[in-house]
């Protein structure tokens, strides 16, 4: 039985088309698996169903009737619940308060009935086989437990359709089992589940129907019977593979960067980065692959000097880097392109010009006087070199599309004349054309002798761009591959090493 349909759904954002006329069927009493690479449009499609975003064109049919949701609460009234990849919880409030937020159980319409809320929360936790006290502040729970609370929140609204966006990314193996039991339970009760994940084996195990998205279009939709990893990968990546820039053959130089024994303590115990050592040569592109939370971003942040508590030693071209501050490390030739463009990479309020020159203001400054003309011409120069499409460098950077914003961030990093470039998910949230350009730029920079370390969760990307690949899991390096003997199965196996060994319950 099909509960919800999208017909001709198109969603346009400034600068990108996130969904291109998709037709999607959501089967009730079944697990509808949704798979695709980052930026393929999975999350956008789910946001449309959950009422977070509205379609630019096309219709949504619920039980055959066209509907239009004006917000998540409106969608919730129609029985659609969503658990976002980024958790939407209030860490300062208790579990029970979070579950009933904005739908508080009331006595006489005024007074919050805390006892009833607590009772229902306890029942929900029992159903989810979790020993979480309703009065615990959510901020004190582990991320996996917080995810369970999110799921409980949707269950409490009696959702007929439940969307789970990468629910297992932060769960331990035991918690995943519990989640799967709950999903089976819900399925029996007739709930239609949409399940988004990057872990292909997991999808094949749990899914009943599969839909594959690529660049905003659906490339495959069928029942799960007979589907194997090869079929999924083929539809995800496509025959005409992404335009990875042609390899520029060039010899590597000497060692430009070395990290030894880098450690970073994790909040709540353990190590987020666990004794990581690696080395990089001039002109080499080193890909770091791993799942979310593997400590890859944290490692790059340690290198740039964001974490004062980190330990370990760094060398640049053989000379030790003793500086601790970000500014001093940038001066030594390290540059970081952060994963979170919006919050870490850019100052949204400032103009494109001011953003690009922010890290290299010293180059235009004599004593303390800035040469604004030199700044402008330098920025113009980089805008041209990176082919950034802008109307004027004086416009706010927030007016640009994701791809152009990313190029601004890259421009900012390159203006510091780095020797080692750290790129954290450089292709996240940008469209296919911009991705190809970013990759081309990376190749060219490497050919010019820059050492590049880049982090990605995209298998194809890491396999085709890297000269060497390091796999991280649970803060540790769990595999190192040369470009020629790296395979997708090998990388996936290495990226799961810490996860299967993790203690079932803490």
């Amino acid at each position, binding site marked *: 039985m099909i509960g919800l349909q999208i017909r001709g759904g198109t969603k346009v954002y*400034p*600068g990108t088309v996130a969904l291109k006329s998709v037709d999607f069927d959501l089967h009730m009493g079944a697990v509808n698996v949704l798979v695709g690479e980052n930026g393929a449009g999975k999350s956008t499609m789910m946001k449309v169903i959950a009422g977070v975003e509205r379609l630019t064109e096309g219709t949504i049919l619920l039980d055959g009737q066209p509907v239009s949701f004006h917000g998540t609460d409106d969608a919730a009234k129609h029985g659609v619940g969503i658990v976002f990849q980024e958790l939407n919880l209030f860490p300062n409030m208790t579990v029970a308060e979070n579950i009933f937020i904005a739908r508080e159980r009331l006595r006489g319409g005024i007074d919050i009935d805390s006892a009833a809320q607590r009772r229902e929360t306890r029942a929900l936790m029992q159903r989810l086989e979790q020993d979480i006290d309703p009065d615990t502040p959510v901020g004190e729970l582990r991320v996996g437990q917080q995810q369970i609370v999110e799921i409980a929140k949707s269950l409490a609204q009696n959702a007929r359709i439940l969307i789970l966006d990468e629910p297992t990314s932060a769960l331990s193996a035991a918690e995943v089992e519990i989640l799967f039991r709950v999903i089976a339970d819900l399925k029996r009760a007739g709930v239609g589940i949409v399940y988004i994940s990057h872990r292909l084996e997991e999808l094949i195990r749990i899914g009943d129907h599969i839909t594959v998205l690529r660049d905003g279009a659906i490339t495959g939709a069928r029942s799960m019977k007979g589907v194997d990893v090869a079929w999924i990968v083929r539809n995800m990546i496509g025959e005409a593979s992404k335009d990875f820039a042609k390899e520029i053959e060039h010899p590597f130089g000497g060692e430009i960067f070395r990290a030894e024994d880098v450690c970073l303590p994790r909040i709540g115990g353990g190590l987020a980065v666990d004794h990581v050592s690696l080395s990089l040569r001039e002109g080499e592109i080193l890909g770091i692959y791993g799942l979310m939370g593997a400590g890859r971003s944290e490692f790059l942040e340690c290198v*740039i000097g*964001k974490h004062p508590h980190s330990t370990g030693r760094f060398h640049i071209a053989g000379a030790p880097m003793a500086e601790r*501050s*970000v*500014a001093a*490390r*940038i*001066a030594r030739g390290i540059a*970081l392109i*952060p994963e979170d463009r919006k*919050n*870490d*990479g*850019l*100052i*949204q*309020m*400032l103009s494109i010009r*001011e953003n690009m*020159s*922010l*890290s290299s*203001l*010293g180059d235009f*400054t004599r004593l*303390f*006087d*800035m040469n*604004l003309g030199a700044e402008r011409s330098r920025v113009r120069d980089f805008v041209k070199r990176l082919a950034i*499409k*802008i*109307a*004027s460098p004086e*416009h*706010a950077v*927030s*007016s*640009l*599309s994701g791809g152009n914003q990313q190029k601004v961030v890259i421009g*900012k990093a390159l203006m*510091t004349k780095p020797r080692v470039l750290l790129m954290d998910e450089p292709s996240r949230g940008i469209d296919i054309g911009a991705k190809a350009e970013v990759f081309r730029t990376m190749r060219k920079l490497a050919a010019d002798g820059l050492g590049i370390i880049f982090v990605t969760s995209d298998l194809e990307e890491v396999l085709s761009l890297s000269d060497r690949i390091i796999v991280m899991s649970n803060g540790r390096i769990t595999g190192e591959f040369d470009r020629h003997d790296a395979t997708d199965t090998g990388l996936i196996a290495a990226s799961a090493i810490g996860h299967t060994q993790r203690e079932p319950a803490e």
Partner: protein
Amino acid sequence: MMSATAPRPIGSTNALLLILKLRTFIALIAVFAFFAFAAPNFLSAANFVIMSKHVALNAFLAIGMTFVIISGGIDLSVGSIVGLCGMVAGWLILYGVDLGMGWSIQFNTLEICLIVILVGIAVGAVNGLLITRLNVAPFIATLGVLYVARGSAMLSSDGRTFPNLNGNAEYGSDTFRMIGAGSFVGIPISIWMLIFVGVLAAYIANRTPLGRHIYAVGGNERGAALSGVKVGRTKMFVYMFSGFCAALVGLIVSSQLVASHPATGDTFELNAIAAAVLGGTSMNGGRGRILGTIVGAFVIGVLSDGLVMMGVSSFWQTVIKGLVIIAAVVIDQAQQKLQARVALQAQAALA
């Protein structure tokens, strides 16, 4: 540039945007024109001198406040620093520094000014240290310093006024009065000082890395830090600069009155914030202009002096001042929306 593709809407929005951007200027001109007709003697040279002296006091504080607000903070302590610095100036002129050995050190005017300015900067540094080192929220840190500074000013004289700050020719402090009363080519010294500080601040804001860092820290502190901006140092500077501006006001007020009273400067911080906001400074940080703030200070000053000359009751003056500030912020919001739309349109036309 984009007028070829969509001539009418973009052309007219651009004109509207320009008007909105210049709104503080337009408001100033409107206020001037209104009082020129409505208040007798408003346009006389003598009135201008008096008015600009009033405005200057608020403008100094507002300039310092603008930097603080652009960096994403707030400085509630400036009014108290004015009072404290006035008392320090008064004490130095009357008593010098008594070392407890039967004699005291006396200072000339320049030395007194330097010491007072250092006191202002030091109080600003305390604000900065509380905020950067001890992670106290700017509102709370400067609120605390507000009370401490005001209390210290009261303690210095047991709440009494230091009268007759005429100085002593023997020590070279008799020129102290000139700060408030003197003039150079017909323009009061305090106005020259304002021009100097205004130009300095505008220069810092527009043409030095420090200025750029202030905007970056206010716009996105995390992003700025990852770009290599020394966030702590930048914040230290804005609070110390704000303290410096407050010290200047303390000097000018005590020189003008030839006396210093420990309650001087009470609620000055609110007028300074009002001037900055009127001039287009965003309370969320990251946005603001020094020139805008100075014009904003003039709008507030001219408005209140003009209303006094028209004989409007001071109660109504307060109400009108509040309405003007609210209107300014509402218009500012409209401008931001329009500006974002124009940029998006230009970008869309490109793609």
